[in-house]
């Protein structure tokens, strides 16, 4: 029979190895590549580490500006997606009753199709011969197609919000289902109206879920590159597109790796600062 110790190792070694080989090692490799001077010939020859790539990244105002814009976009997408997901989670928890499971499945149905397909659908919606323009022209609201709908930063934000809402619902929903119903009854018995009950009981108890939802959206959105590629046009590109460009278009892996590491560090710092400022535990114990 297996002892406690061997069971522990048996269960934790495979995932640990997996993380080591497919997460930690590539990350280290990327860090190493970012310290090499050139892609030609000596990509993995790291005998002469140099910080030249970082000097280039930090010296080019355009890159940092785009990083700033990407952070702001991610902030907007994170806040709006979380705000929109909140009522959905509330509905699922308190109003949907026995059908909650069914609605949850409905919410997740879009994930059965590919991400690419869902983003491309927005092109069909917003293009100059797309659904929105065709309808408005048919209804004689406009004479010629609205061109600002597609290929700009706004489109990227809208599409990303759409993509993230279902994800954002899940942690909020999980937090809300854990709320003890007797707490709400007690509040009502003590004379709290619906708004007071929401503001003093439901909201604070659901907040950790909302904060988790925000970060779940914010962190990957900072490095997003597929959505801007498809619907962003020339003016809607994000920082992630720079990274991708240096790997696939400019054949400059070291610079691409340095850009990626800079973004990683900045995101970690931002999240650390935010966690400090918000102090999640305060809400959890309220």
């Amino acid at each position, binding site marked *: 029979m297996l002892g406690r110790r061997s069971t522990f190792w048996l269960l934790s070694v495979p995932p640990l190895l997996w993380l080591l080989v497919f997460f930690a090692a590539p990350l280290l490799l990327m860090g190493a590549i970012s310290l090499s001077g050139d892609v030609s010939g000596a990509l993995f020859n790291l005998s002469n580490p140099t910080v030249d790539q970082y000097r280039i990244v930090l010296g080019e105002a355009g890159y940092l500006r785009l990083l700033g814009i990407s952070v702001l976009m991610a902030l907007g997408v994170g806040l709006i997606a979380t705000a929109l997901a909140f009522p959905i989670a509330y509905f699922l928890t308190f109003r949907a009753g026995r059908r909650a499971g069914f609605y949850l499945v409905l919410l997740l149905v879009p994930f059965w199709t590919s991400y690419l397909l869902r983003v491309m659908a927005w092109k069909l919606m917003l293009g100059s011969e797309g659904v929105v323009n065709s309808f408005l022209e048919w209804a004689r609201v406009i004479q010629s197609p609205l061109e600002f709908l*597609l290929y700009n930063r706004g489109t990227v934000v809208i599409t990303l919000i759409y993509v993230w809402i279902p994800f954002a619902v899940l942690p909020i929903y999980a937090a809300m289902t854990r709320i003890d119903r007797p707490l709400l009854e007690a509040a009502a018995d003590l004379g709290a109206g619906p708004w007071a009950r929401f503001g003093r009981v439901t909201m604070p108890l659901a907040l950790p879920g909302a904060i988790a939802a925000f970060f779940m959206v914010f962190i990957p959105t900072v490095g997003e590159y597929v959505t801007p590629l498809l619907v962003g046009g*020339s003016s809607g590109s994000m920082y992630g597109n720079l990274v991708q460009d240096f790997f696939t*278009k400019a054949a*400059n892996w070291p610079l691409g790796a340095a850009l990626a590491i800079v973004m990683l560090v900045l995101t970690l710092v931002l999240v650390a600062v935010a966690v400090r400022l918000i102090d999640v535990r305060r809400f959890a114990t309220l």
Partner: protein
Amino acid sequence: MVRSSRPARVVSAISITVALILSACSAGPGGSTAPSGTGSLTVLDWAGYDAPDFWIDFQKAYPKVKVGFEIGASDADIYGKMSSGDQADIFHPYTGWLQFYVDQGLVEPIDTSKLKNWSMVPDSFKKIGQIGGKQYFIPWDWGFTSILYRTDKIKSVDSWSALFNPAYKGHISMWDDGPGAVTVSSYIHGWDETKITADQLAQIKTEWTAQKALNLFYWSGEPELVQGMQTGDVWAAYAWQGAYATLLTKGVPVAYATPKEGRNSWVGVYGIRKGTPNLDLAYKFLDAKLGVATGNNVVTQFYYGSANSKVMSSITDATLKQAFSIDDPAILQHTNFTPNLTDAQRKAWGAMWTEVKAGS
């Protein structure tokens, strides 16, 4: 004999395992000893060219050989993969990117006497695959680059500067590529594209940064451009003639300009990775690539030219003739071949383009 200590045994066990794994890797699929009718081959190619139609002659001749494909997203991507140790036997770069492979010793020189179809390749194409007097690459597909425009939106285009025309604001689409942008600018200014100075590059960057406000999107795959032009969102674009022919067959009113600065022309070539264990099969694959059936499929399905002159001389379809400008005897005089990039140019031009895209 003294029994080895426990750590020593562990170490030797590990090293034996590692040695086994390494030897298994280096033998590779198929191995070098496989008879010519079997085995396997890996090709690093562009999306689309992995379809059997584009290596049909090989498939017919060697049905038992397993051909696997890796997909490269661009020349830079293919170069990045090959220089970081990709194990593909055959790869498919385009003019402009050939010198690097030779300089870094990534490509095997080719003994053309082993290729039965070699005599069907015109000398002008053969030269494109030669570097330093040696044949390193086999030319295969070729095409033009010019400005493609919607004739219902734009009357006529006679210069590359159409891509900078404010009258088409929001309806222009440039190819997402640094060297491509430098090529266009050097045509417009009449500069020698192989000798772009730092000042000229700075000016190119300024001009393309200003162009960004006019540009709807930078296309990276041809279907993306075709869709944009079909819906009428894009009126004028940097384009290969594949997009032109596709739109013609869809009945979209488009024309392919013959700019006064000249069209650009590119050639795709195949190279064999230096040290491949499947050298014999690689030769057979390249020979079959030059076959007539394969070449015909390139012409009829992608509207690109074939390096096989027999394929080109048998074209009768009017749309295709128009796409290749076959009946225009002067068209090659209006064409500039893409020169080979240097390492420094690739880096500087790539960075310039990324900065253009990152800028406001």
